[in-house]
Every structure is written in C-alpha cells, then in structure tokens.
C-alpha cells in the first residue's frame, strides 16, 4: 500500500454550472436530492460504517463541504466537522435538505438491515459522483471487516489524494459552441393524483435480470434506456387517452453522463438532460412506433455539437455580467418563482440510468445489488432510476402521489413480456 499523502483541499470553491441552480430551488417542499444504496449480504455494523465514512471522506474533497452564502452566489466551503453522522434509515428517503442540518454536510449516510444508503444534494455531485462515493464507502467498510478489497472500477484508492481534475467544473472547459440552443419548450402532460403529505415519497423498486432486459431491448434494436423510456411513454400516452383530458405532448427527460462524451475526471456535476417527446394529437402510437421514436430522437439529441451548444448556452448565462452582479437574494427570489411556476412543466416522466456499476471482483461475493432512487418531483409521478450490478437490474420509482397505477402498469408490462420482477416498496 502506498504511503498516505497529506491532502490539500481548497478552503472554498464555486458551485459548478449545473449546481448553481439547486440551492436557489431548494425549498421546504422540494429539494433536488437523490439516493444510491448498496445491499450487502450481511447485516450492517453502524460503528464500522461510521469509521469507514471518516476514512474515505478526505478522498472526496467535493463531498467534504458545507454550503455558504456569498453576496452574489452560493459557494462550497470545506466542512471543519471530521465525522459525518451515520443514521438508521428512514421511510421517506430524499426528504428536503437544510444546509444547517446534518453537521452542515450535504449528504446523509443511512443503514438498514443489509443496506447502506447515501442521500446526496445534487449541487455537490451527480449520480456518477455519488456512486463512486458509496462504492468506495462499501469497499472501505468491507476492508474494516477484514476483507482484502483493492481499488478499481467505481472504488477509488483512498491512499492517494484526489487529483485537481476531480474538483474542476468541466462545463466551461468544454463549452466551445457559438450556437445557441433554445431552452423553452411546451408544457406537457402530467399524470395527476392525490399528493402525499409533505416530506413523504412512495418508493417502488423492481429487481429483474439485466440479461433478460438486454435481450428484449436487443430484439427491438434499442438500448435498455430507450426500451424503458418507450414503456414509460406508452403508459403516459394511454393514461392520457383514458383520462379524456385535453391532449398534450408526452415527454421523458433523460440525463446523460457527459464523461462518456468528453474526457473528464470530475467528481462534480457533469451531466445534461435530454428530452424525447411524442405528440398524441398526431394519432395513437403503437409500442413499436414509440420505441422507434424514442430511439431516433435520443440518438439525434445525443449529437455532441447539439450538447455543446446547450452547455455553452448555460455557461453564457452564468457568465452574463448582469446576472453575476445581481444580489443573491434577488437571484433566489427569481429562481424560486420560476421553480414554482415552471418546474417539471416540460417533463411527463424522468428516467435516469446509472449504467452498470463496475466493482472489483473481490467485492462481488459481498454485494447483492445497487439501487438508484431519484428524489421525488413536484409534479412528476414517474421519476425513475435504473442501476445494474452483475446480472441484477433495479428499476426504482419515486412517486409524490398516493396512486401507483404507473408503477403497476410498468411492472406488469414487463411481466407480460416474460421478465421475472421482484417488487419492494416503502408503502405500509
């Protein structure tokens, strides 16, 4: 093992281009927070887990922070607290973040039975960053239990210091386009229902075989994400027709990891959302037609030049001198109103795929599955997360409504296609 070096973490740093929005949008009713959890094969020991968190935290300088207010912007400052608390899990994951709670850390570590979970505020990092954090945490936990776990895949080597690239905001670095992509979009269909009490969310996870899903998607000539997006779109289109409401477009928002397009090592936010949509006014789409629509649209939208135009536009907005010199209170007020009136108005469903979680071979005997749960939305009933480890794919819904007809229709569709699905939920 190499000698542990002293780590020089900067005292403060700016929020990244995607992260600057989230603190302003953060309210008592809604926070942009998401969860990655790992289920092990044995009961979790909280004392060892606490030690593991303490050990790995210096390796993740972008997580070892607290949110502070400047005169013009929020910024992240090194958190002087050395030991983040580790708590028993709760029924309502991803409840709102308050910057002064949890020792001012912007993540929360939980344990319950066999699983370890990390809820993370999106201003700190995206799903990719959080997965690295939890995988390294689980590896360290297993090491403290007396197992030999090397670094590799999503497990970072905690004996070396984090390179500067992991802390950089890579949006301005790659934003080169002079083109300006339009941000405005039409308001789309939303499945409505009875709102759950404040801070509550209904989580429904379906565990299935990755190989079975991959085979189904391959047969149709699409990827797993496109396949699931098409099912969600089909459910929403049919639901809208049944409700006999004024027909609106149905759209699915899909975030993509920009590290797959640009050579980036950052542990902070570096993803962008793409949107695929269909207009039911054009006529009734069959499932195969929807598959084709989703696959073609998503592949067109994944064009590097289009993505770069979108990033460049966001970076230009951040660098606008007028906005930069606007006091933070004014920015927050404007952002709050914009969130209240237009948040999620252009998205019927949200689908984020973490992709296959690659871990060292030595960890495989200890890990059952990886679960990715997006935070509940303000209006969107179907906020879905996909994660896969070994042959286990977990599809999770975070629903802010009591009704679960979308979840039911989604999983029964898969059952009808011949996929074995195991359901777990936080509903009582």
């Amino acid at each position, binding site marked *: 093992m190499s000698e542990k070096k002293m780590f020089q973490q900067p005292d403060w740093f700016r929020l990244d281009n995607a992260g600057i929005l989230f603190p302003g949008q953060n309210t*008592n009713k809604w926070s942009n927070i998401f969860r990655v959890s790992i289920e092990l094969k044995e009961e979790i020991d909280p004392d060892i887990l606490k030690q593991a968190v303490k050990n790995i935290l210096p390796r993740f300088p972008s997580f070892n922070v607290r949110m502070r207010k400047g005169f013009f912007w929020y910024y992240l400052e090194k958190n002087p607290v050395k030991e983040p608390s580790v708590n*028993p*899990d*709760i*029924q*309502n994951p991803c*409840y*709102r973040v*308050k910057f002064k*709670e949890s020792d001012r850390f912007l993540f929360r570590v*939980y344990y*319950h*039975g*066999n699983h370890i979970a990390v809820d993370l505020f999106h201003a700190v990092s995206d799903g990719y960053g959080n997965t690295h954090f939890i995988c390294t945490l689980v590896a360290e936990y297993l090491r403290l239990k007396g197992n030999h776990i090397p670094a590799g895949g999503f497990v970072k080597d905690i004996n070396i210091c984090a390179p500067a690239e992991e802390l950089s905001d890579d949006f301005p670095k790659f934003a080169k386009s002079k083109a300006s992509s339009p941000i405005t979009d039409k308001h789309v269909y939303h499945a*409505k229902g009875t709102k759950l009490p*404040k*801070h*509550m969310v209904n*989580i*429904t*996870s*379906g565990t299935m075989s990755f190989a079975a899903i991959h085979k189904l998607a391959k047969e149709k000539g699409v990827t797993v994400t496109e396949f699931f997006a098409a099912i969600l779109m089909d459910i929403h289109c049919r639901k809208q027709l049944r409700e006999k*409401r004024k027909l609106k477009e149905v759209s699915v928002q899909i975030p993509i990891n920009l590290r797959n397009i640009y050579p980036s090592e950052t542990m902070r936010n570096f993803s962008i959302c793409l949107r695929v949509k269909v207009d039911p006014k054009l006529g009734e789409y069959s499932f195969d037609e929807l598959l084709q629509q989703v696959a073609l649209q998503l592949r067109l939208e994944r064009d590097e030049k289009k993505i770069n135009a979108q990033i460049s536009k966001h970076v230009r907005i951040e660098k606008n001198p007028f906005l930069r010199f606007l006091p933070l209170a004014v920015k927050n007020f404007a952002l709050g109103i914009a969130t209240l009136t237009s948040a999620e108005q252009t998205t019927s469903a949200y689908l984020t795929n973490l992709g296959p979680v690659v871990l060292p071979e030595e960890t495989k005997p200890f890990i059952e599955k990886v679960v990715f749960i997006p935070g509940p939305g303000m209006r969107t009933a179907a906020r879905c997360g996909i994660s896969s480890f070994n042959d286990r794919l977990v599809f999770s819904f975070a629903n802010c409504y009591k009704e*679960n007809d979308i*979840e*039911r229709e989604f*999983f*029964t569709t898969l*059952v*009808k296609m011949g996929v*074995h*699905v*195991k*359901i*777990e*939920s*936080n*509903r*009582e």
Partner: protein
Amino acid sequence: MSYCVNCGVELDATAKKCALCDTPVYNPLRKEEKDVTTPFSQTPVIPTNIKQKFVALIVTYIFLIPNLVCIFLNFFINPENLWFIYVLSSSLLCWIVFVFPFFTKKLHPYLMWVFDTVAIALYVFVFHAKNLGGEKWYFGIALPTIAITSLCVVYFLYWIRQRKRHWTSKVLHIFIDLVIIFTVLCICLYFANHIITFDIFLVLDACCLALVFFWLYANKSKKVRSWLGKKMFV
C-alpha cells in the same frame, strides 16, 4: 417466496400485501419470522420547520405596538377627533390579509377570502365613507362593488379547483356569475333607498337563475350533454 395473483410479480418475503395493487398475500407455506428486516425502513422522519404560528405572533405584537401608542396619544393630541381609528383599521386590514392565514393549520381559501372581504369592506367604511359622500355612497356603490367582486372571485376559485371542465360547465359558470351580480345589485339597490330601480335586475336575476338550473342539470346528465353536443356543435 410469494407472488401477487393479480400482477404476477414476486413480492418481498415480509410483504403483507402487493405494493402495486394492494392484494393481500396469502401463503400458507410461509413461516412467520419475527426478526425479518423489511426492505425499507418503516420509520418516517418529518423534519421540524420554523413554527409559523410563532412568527405570526411576533408580527402581531409588532402590529399592536403602533396601534396602542396611537390610542394613547389620541387622548392628548386632538382628542375630539378619533384619528387613531384610521391607524387601527389599516393595521387590521394588513393583519387579516397577511398575518392571519399563518395562524391556521390548513389554508381554507374560501374562508380566508370571506375574512378578507369583510376586512376590506370595514376598511373602506371607516376610511372613506365619511369623506366620499357618506353612507349612501358606501351602501350604493362601494359595498356592492366589493361584494360582486368578492363573490365572483369565490366562484372563480371554485371553478378553477374543479378538475374536469366540460363546455356545459363553462356556460353554467357564466350564468352563475350573472346570478351573483344581479342578486347583489338587487339587494344593494334595495337598501340604498332606490337610487336606481332594482325591478329590472330582479327579472334578469330570475331568468339567469332558471338558466342556471337548466345548465346544472345539463352538466350532470350525460344524455342531455350528448344531445346538446349533437344539436349545438359549431
């Protein structure tokens, strides 16, 4: 392992009912295990927030201080003219509109609007009735205007909270608005010592009321609705 007979999905070993369709799990072969962990924790955490009532109480005290000072000063400065009433009525209006809602646990939009209307009517009476033509002006013009606007807002609130809006409900909405306007006009004109004759409004009101009943029936009955759709398409 148990499966849902309705959905076909496998259920968690601890599940008592299907998480998708609420069908109860009945598996005579399943052993009752006491120390089995559920896949999700069953303990919710509801974070505590700043107590709204406490903040509202502080603001109420802040409102009270200038009013008490003004009442006290009125005994010494210009005591024959009760000028403190102006300060009191303005404060009361602000308090009812902006502070009072925070004392309630759940916001009742209709009830709040009734309070607001009463507060506005009282405020206008105290502040302007004497200066702008006396009680006749107040009961003849100011009060009807406030009442009509308020009732229209209440009905608009009701209408906007309705989920399904058929075109017949829109027509019904127009007639209900008209009934409200004419009824209030009739009542106010009667009490305002007949500035304008109210008979014509009474006839209009009766006609609109009859139409409201017709459209109410049309809105409820599928048969009438489809007949109207057939006969009156544009």
